[in-house]
């Protein structure tokens, strides 16, 4: 009888550990914003104290400056970003017809540069690319994340989800082990958070700069002592896509501020 009880308990423990790795129920989803102290929240909320707004300002200048052999500015085709780019960032990463796979906002900007402006693509994490991305994403502030509305993205979301669940690195951790199972706890004194990428590109006080979601993902992957994917790798875009689909309906905060 005792062994039967032991087996039942063991079975319960196994099923409990399986149950743990599940998605966060919709009403319990929280932006990283809600995990921050009031001083950092105030910094994000005030457009004069939010350092990310410096990049948005630079992005507006770049939007209106001519570039490349075609000598065209973004504004020459897209006009006023306040109306033409409204809600755009809420749909990214989006499916690109010519490539047959999703591209993120940085890649879209660079594709526009190379094909329409005939200019050299901007380097990942360069001040210019971050500024343009922040400026475009800022036009969607407060709008709900709509990524995944396109049915062609389905298989890529699934791939991203697989990577999110995959244990890897010397610490043998998957994203889910922290951000789904332990988001209400702390790691080295800092809240773990649920990992909803609603404020990117965002200003991290630790970076003393604006940075992209891919920079954040690469830092996390290095943290679990795995080999990070290079900037722009399809794996990172799929992971971005899954994270955005996981945050669907949550408001865009760009440019966010995080500790």
């Amino acid at each position: 009888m005792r062994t039967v009880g032991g087996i039942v308990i063991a079975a319960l423990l196994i099923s409990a550990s399986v149950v743990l790795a599940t998605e966060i129920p919709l009403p319990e989803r929280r932006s990283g914003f809600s995990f921050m102290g009031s001083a950092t929240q105030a910094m994000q909320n005030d457009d004069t104290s939010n350092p990310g707004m410096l990049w948005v300002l630079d992005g507006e200048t770049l939007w209106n400056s001519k570039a490349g052999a075609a000598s065209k500015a973004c504004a020459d085709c897209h006009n006023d970003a306040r109306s033409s780019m409204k809600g755009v960032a809420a749909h990214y990463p989006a499916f690109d017809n010519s490539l047959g796979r999703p591209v993120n906002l940085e890649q879209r900007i660079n594709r526009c540069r190379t094909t329409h402006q005939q200019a050299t693509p901007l380097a990942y994490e360069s001040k210019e690319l971050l500024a343009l991305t922040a400026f475009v994403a800022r036009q969607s502030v407060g709008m709900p994340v709509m990524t995944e509305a396109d049915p062609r993205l389905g298989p890529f979301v699934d791939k991203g989800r697989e990577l999110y669940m995959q244990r890897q690195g010397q610490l043998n951790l998957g994203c889910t082990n922290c951000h789904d199972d332990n988001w209400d706890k702390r790691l080295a004194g800092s809240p773990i958070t649920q990992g909803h990428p609603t404020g990117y590109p965002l200003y991290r006080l630790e970076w003393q700069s604006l940075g992209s979601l891919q920079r954040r993902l690469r830092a996390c992957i290095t943290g679990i002592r795995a080999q990070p994917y290079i900037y722009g790798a399809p794996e990172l875009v799929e992971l971005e896509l899954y994270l955005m689909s996981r945050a669907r309906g949550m408001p865009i905060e760009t440019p966010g501020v995080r500790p």
Partner: protein
Amino acid sequence: MPSALINVPARAKRGDVIEIKTLMSHIMETGYRHTASGENVPRDILTSFSCRYNGVEIFRADLFPAIAANPFISFYTVASQSGKFEFEWIGDKGFSETASASITVE
């Protein structure tokens, strides 16, 4: 391309205490860091900030290497008359930037 964000109330009543907020883009490189190959990264910081209200200096600050990138400086003054606030940031490597904002005092 240095850029600054300034927040001064557009209107105020005479005698009101008003808050002025400024944010300047700057890397504030301390001079204490080294590259991977061991070379010193030279210091590049803002060293001074000042604000003049209709030509009269009302606020001045010296900045040092321990101050974070993109310094945010906020202070208070009494709105005495309509006019202009002029801001100036001075730093290493010949850095010099100015900005201004107007106020209407009723």
